[in-house]
């Protein structure tokens, strides 16, 4: 069972990473969510084998599930929920400003492209008297 869940976490990580490398902002947001879910799943798995629910007195204390990772995961889920919301707001703001969903080019790349264009224009001017 744990192996299946670990494999599921691996699939989530893989899918999340692939989506993270896409151009569209919405896909990036979904990819990050998948990555966070994969990490949360791993934290859950670190509790060990499935066991009895952690109510003191219900069963022998040695057969109770470790509750600490569940507390970790709750915190982590809430954190990733908040940040995903912020990221979505940021993506929407980018959409209202640029009217498309794409990741912007890097500033340095655009600068290099602009300098190349200018150099080409200069060459054209000098080439044709």
């Amino acid at each position: 069972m744990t192996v299946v869940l670990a494999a599921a976490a691996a699939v989530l990580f893989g899918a999340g990473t692939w989506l993270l490398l896409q151009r569209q902002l919405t896909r990036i947001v979904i990819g990050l969510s998948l990555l966070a879910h994969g990490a949360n799943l791993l934290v859950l798995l670190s509790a060990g084998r499935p066991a009895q629910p952690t109510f003191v007195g219900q069963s022998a204390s040695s057969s109770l599930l470790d509750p600490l990772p569940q507390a970790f995961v709750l915190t982590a889920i809430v954190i990733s929920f908040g940040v995903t919301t912020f990221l979505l707001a940021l993506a929407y703001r980018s959409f209202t400003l640029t009217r498309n969903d794409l990741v912007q080019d890097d500033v340095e790349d655009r600068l290099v492209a602009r300098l190349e264009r200018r150099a080409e224009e200069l060459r054209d001017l000098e080439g044709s008297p």
Partner: protein
Amino acid sequence: MNALLAAPVGLPLAAAGLCVAVGRFRRAQEVVSTTTLIAVTAATVALLLRVDAHGALATQAGGWPAPLGITLVADRFSAVMLVIGALMLLAVLVYAIGQGDVARRHVGFHPVYLILAAGVSAAFLTGDLFNLFVSFEVMLTASYVLLTLGGRLDQVRTGMTYVVISLLASGLFLTAIAFVYASTGTVNLADLADRLAALPPGLRQALVLLLLVVFGIKAAVFPLFFWLPDSYPTAPTAVTAVFAGLLTKVGVYAVIRTQTLLLEGDDRPQELLLWAAGLTMVVGVIGAIANNDIKRILSFHIVSQIGYMVMGLALFTVAGIAAAILYIAHHIVVKTTLFLAGGLVEHRAGTGQLDRLSGLVRTAPLLGVLFLVPALSLAGIPPFSGFVAKLALVDAGFAADRWLLVGTSLVVSLLTLFSMTKIWTGAFWGEPDPEATALRRAPGLMVGPTAALTVLSLVVAVAAGPLLGLTTRAAEDLLDRRNYTEVVTDQ
């Protein structure tokens, strides 16, 4: 003892709520945030004095005993970082209030700034990995908001890059915590120091390396630094100053804390850290030389100076780590001052592009001094604090026989000086542009903190002897792990 340890975290959080409540009145918000940060500074100074006199302090939040509960620990290293951090946050807040544009227009600036302060303090005080994760997240989320406050297109673009990289690092951190918990059954740092020793060496090194990668992304160590020069320059000046001064140093703090506490002797990735330090220094300064905008040059310098701090750590001797801590303290002060001075240049002349500035030393001489002192300090010119810190590092490097690294650090120092003179000659030297519009006056609240921080860097230089004594005691504490573990397990 409880109050002193909880104050740097609890006070800013409570004040953030208060700031939201009085959101209608900017003046009230400013008063609340300034008084809170003054109180936090006083508390951290008191904490440092107490910890230096009596040794590390620890407390359990909520009464749950270690290692199950949340531990707040302050040893000398944490206390030094707390004091410097609190001073920086206060100075930059006053600067931002003086600058007016971002602090005045957005009701969310002051609450989020205070939450950032709380997150940074929590990161320095926490005693377990998961609380470190939470405090990183608090700090990072506040930084996301501050970075994109204003909503312009370039801010949104760089904000997106920064958020995505940070989220990736957070996912990795959570994965590392999962693996650590699965292997050892605890996330308490003091407890981990014992339990990691019982693991097979390969697994132990893999866990610590994973943590090193996570904190390396935050600290902008080579080759994980690529996000920093892209995202820092577009934020408002005050925000960039705080990020440059503090956020990367929290990453460096986490690196130092985990590398010294969790591993021992031969297990430590010494060669890897030495190479990473050298490459970070070189790549950072080359990037600085290649650029033409003040903020961008300074951002690359951050990367380069992080290399120096990791170099001090990588030596893994008392002298090396003491020099690294002194370097961190000096660099936080100097970097913040440089960014504030750069912001003053932009405020007065209207631009930060070097090819559009000239002759500011004639038209704004005070600004020239405020830029020159930290710039020379960063390059390592005596008698400023940079010289003292670099001398300590070089000394420690020679004592550990790391000739190549010391040589690299000296060459990088020269190149840093070169790029600083590039800014100086571009912006300050030369004839003032006769067609330039008249310079705007800089308000006193902007010049004041910059001048105060410049004086502070001079104080660091003058008081270097006692400071190095303090950091040596801190380094001895770090390398002898029992100080930390005994204080925590005694709770």
